[in-house]
């Protein structure tokens, strides 16, 4: 992105900055944009938390570091997105992360799936990274400057995340018989949640947001705020099966789950995760840490 003389267009934000801007009545998300940011923020937060669970349990030290590193990037994205979302309602990132119940979380169900073994985590990470990669690349062109800036920053990081999961997909798929079997099982276990990833955003007030067309390679402007997911689905369908077969594995045929994360419907995995994540904050509401 090229710096622009228009300050408000180039100024986008991390939590503290967004919080300050709100006081100055600068950057307040409209309700539909806030709901959209909330969904994306929850996707990133929930996955970041899951990756954090790996730390000190990883197969080798390098992976403790790598998974922590990826989790930290995602947590950064989550913080910016949640803070921006909260600007619509006068709530902070922490209000949103710690004081909403399970049915108020809008993350898609893939991200809340338990870590399982390392292959499960890599399968989840592969699907997640392909989703984030397409999403953020497109969102860089959003007409909403805050979303565009968050996405531009995230794109560079997700690039690494995708490479990490692809490298491990190859190693596990082509490594040993056991790793091959486990990787296939991981893919099969996570596949049902792929269907929901590219389902259109729900729960956004009608007429509130325009969608971003996928073509982000040319330099033109675009008219929308949120990313149109349908074209991302085709990209996923083209890339992922090839990666899976390159790793000597089989594209799963298990049916997709009903999904519903964006409407607050979750699998049994999310509740216990949130209970742990929120326990201390909820024991001391209203304090500063």
């Amino acid at each position, binding site marked *: 992105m*090229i710096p622009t003389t228009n300050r408000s267009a180039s100024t986008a934000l991390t939590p503290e900055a967004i919080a300050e801007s709100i006081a100055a009545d600068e950057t307040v998300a409209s309700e539909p944009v806030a709901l959209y940011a909330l969904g994306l923020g929850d996707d990133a937060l929930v996955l970041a938390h899951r990756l954090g669970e790996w730390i000190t349990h990883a197969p*080798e030290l*390098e992976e403790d*570091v790598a998974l922590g590193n990826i989790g930290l990037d995602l947590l950064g994205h989550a913080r910016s997105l949640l803070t921006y979302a909260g600007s619509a309602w006068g709530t902070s990132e922490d209000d949103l992360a710690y004081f909403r119940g399970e049915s108020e979380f809008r993350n898609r169900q893939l991200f809340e799936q338990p870590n399982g073994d390392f292959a499960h985590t890599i399968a989840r990470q592969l699907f997640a990274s392909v989703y984030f990669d397409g999403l953020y690349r497109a969102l860089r062109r959003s007409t909403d400057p805050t979303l565009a*800036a968050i996405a*531009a*920053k995230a794109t560079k990081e997700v690039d690494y995340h995708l490479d990490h999961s692809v490298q491990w997909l190859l190693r596990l798929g082509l490594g040993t018989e056991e790793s091959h079997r486990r990787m296939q099982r991981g893919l099969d276990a996570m596949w049902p949640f792929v269907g929901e990833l590219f389902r259109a955003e729900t729960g956004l007030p009608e007429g509130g947001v325009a969608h971003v067309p996928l073509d982000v390679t040319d330099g033109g402007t675009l008219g929308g705020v949120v990313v149109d997911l349908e074209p991302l689905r085709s990209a996923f369908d083209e890339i992922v099966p090839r990666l899976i077969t390159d790793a000597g594995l089989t594209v799963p045929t298990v049916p997709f789950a009903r999904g519903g994360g964006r409407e607050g419907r979750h699998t049994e995995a999310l509740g216990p995760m949130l209970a742990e994540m929120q326990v201390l904050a909820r024991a001391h509401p209203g304090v500063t840490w």
Partner: protein
Amino acid sequence: MTSASTLGETRGHGGVERGHIVHADAVLERQARPRPLNEAERAIWDLAATVVDPEVPVLTIEDLGVLRGVTFATASGSVTVEITPTYSGCPAVDAMRDDIVGVLHGNGYDDVSVKVVLAPAWTTDWLSDEGRTKLEEYGIAAPGPRRGGGTVSLGLGIRCPRCGSMHTRQLSRFGSTSCKALYVCQRCQEPFDHFKEH
């Protein structure tokens, strides 16, 4: 545990020469360090520019290209400093923010706010030549240039900051902080961090 199991191991090849000091052109330099032209703001910029990265304290936030702008409202005397994070989740940002406020308060600017901006996204191309030299002297291999804004191709030799050999090997793609990867020099055996291209 063997090194074979780590990801992305690459071996540098002796003889692959690549200058480790990148001479950014004037446009890039201006983008990296938009020091204000106005005198009052420039004075504030120069104070803020003394704040260092808490984890790599040989680099100032100006060297890094993290310092993005200064505005001074003459009427009210209020100062706004803009910084940008290197990585989305970088915990050093909060410390830099506090240190900027600290140094400006110490110099008589009472009304200071620090804004964290995300756009344009930070890149290692903004690291100053001086910063690169300081980094190398500190024992961290400086980042090379990014290729056309895309992913940097791995496998180009990383020069050992101690003996200058290009015969180096990546041990871990992620180091102690997000911005670094761990290498070892095959010639002098020095383990060292490489500030990754970003």
